[in-house]
């Protein structure tokens, strides 16, 4: 037995290393799934300040509660405690479509991401803008965004994500 151990000592020492090396051929996959793909690096701007991201600059103009009305001028009814938020984000882009593929969310005080244009605004004139001036006239423009927050939630930040900028994303802090 001792002779066998001595004869195979290098192989036995290499065995645990080989086991540890098993995932190496797919290391790029793990890197993409756990490191490169998730949005995990926040580029933050306090209220009133700008950030540069993905070929443009952006800043939060305002994020305030508002009371929407439908096409007939009647207030849109939601259960008590719900709050509609009207956010305005300013953009200054290098080219008209620099940020065209972006996604915009409202982050609430509990860390949840809310998309614009909730179903409660379906039959109203309110439609959120995007990260590009759809009329294509100006490289500096403002986007109106409409959200609905449930009871107990406050706006914390406007979050902007661009696929090609992963893992970086923008948080325009509301306070």
């Amino acid at each position, binding site marked *: 037995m001792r002779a066998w151990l001595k004869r195979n000592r290098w192989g036995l020492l290499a065995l645990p290393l080989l086991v540890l090396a098993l995932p190496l051929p797919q290391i790029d996959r793990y890197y993409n799934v756990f490191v490169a793909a998730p949005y995990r690096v926040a580029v933050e701007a306090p209220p009133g300040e700008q950030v540069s991201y993905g070929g443009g600059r952006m800043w939060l103009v305002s994020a305030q509660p508002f009371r929407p009305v439908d096409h007939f001028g009647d207030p849109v009814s*939601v259960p008590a405690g719900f709050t509609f938020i009207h956010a305005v984000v300013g953009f200054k882009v290098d080219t008209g479509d620099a940020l065209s593929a972006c996604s915009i*969310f409202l982050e609430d005080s509990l*860390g*949840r*991401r809310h998309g614009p244009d*909730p*179903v409660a605004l379906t039959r109203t004139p309110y439609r959120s803008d995007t990260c590009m001036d759809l009329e294509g006239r100006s490289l500096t423009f403002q986007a109106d965004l409409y959200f609905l927050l449930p*009871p107990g*939630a406050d706006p914390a930040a406007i979050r902007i994500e661009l696929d090609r900028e992963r893992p970086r994303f923008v948080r325009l802090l509301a306070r």
Partner: protein
Amino acid sequence: MSRRRLLHVASGIVLILLALAAAQGLDRLRPSIAHQQGSFVRSAPTGVAVDLRLASLTVTSVRGSQTVLTPDSRYTAVTDGVFVAVRVKVVPYTEPVAFSMLEARDEAGNRFLPTTLAAQPIATGVTFQPGYGTEGEIVFEVPAESAPSLRLWAQIPAIARADTVADLPLGIRPADVAAWQASSETLVPHDLEVSP
């Protein structure tokens, strides 16, 4: 070759063959690709929420009729079977979600998509926001004999492999179907509603 050497080589070959046989046996025990990457099917009765990883889904009620109001609200559509309106409540947890599949299936394996004869405010395409519930109805047109075994199938991600799929029995009784067929009431799908 000495007898001892011969025995050494033979035992080595036998050990290799045994290892190959063991590997073959282990390989047969391995689950199939379909099993490994299959969906996690979760079920719950009417009124009980099922967890779909990104959101919860509850069938809150079911009603039916032979007549339904068309999407433009000007006409009614009549069927030889029944229109079944399934009211559901969706509560996403932390991010907006949209369903990639909402369909009804009967015990014979027939699959029914939401009918185009009725307004479908909650069918695929609607984005549900987190932190609160959104309720609405999905209307299916099905043969009367299919209705008692009808189940709602729903999934959120575009790729169902290795993810959760809801399989919710609708609990329709034959007596319900008979009552719906006898009724002259027009089914008017409810609008979407939000709730805490």
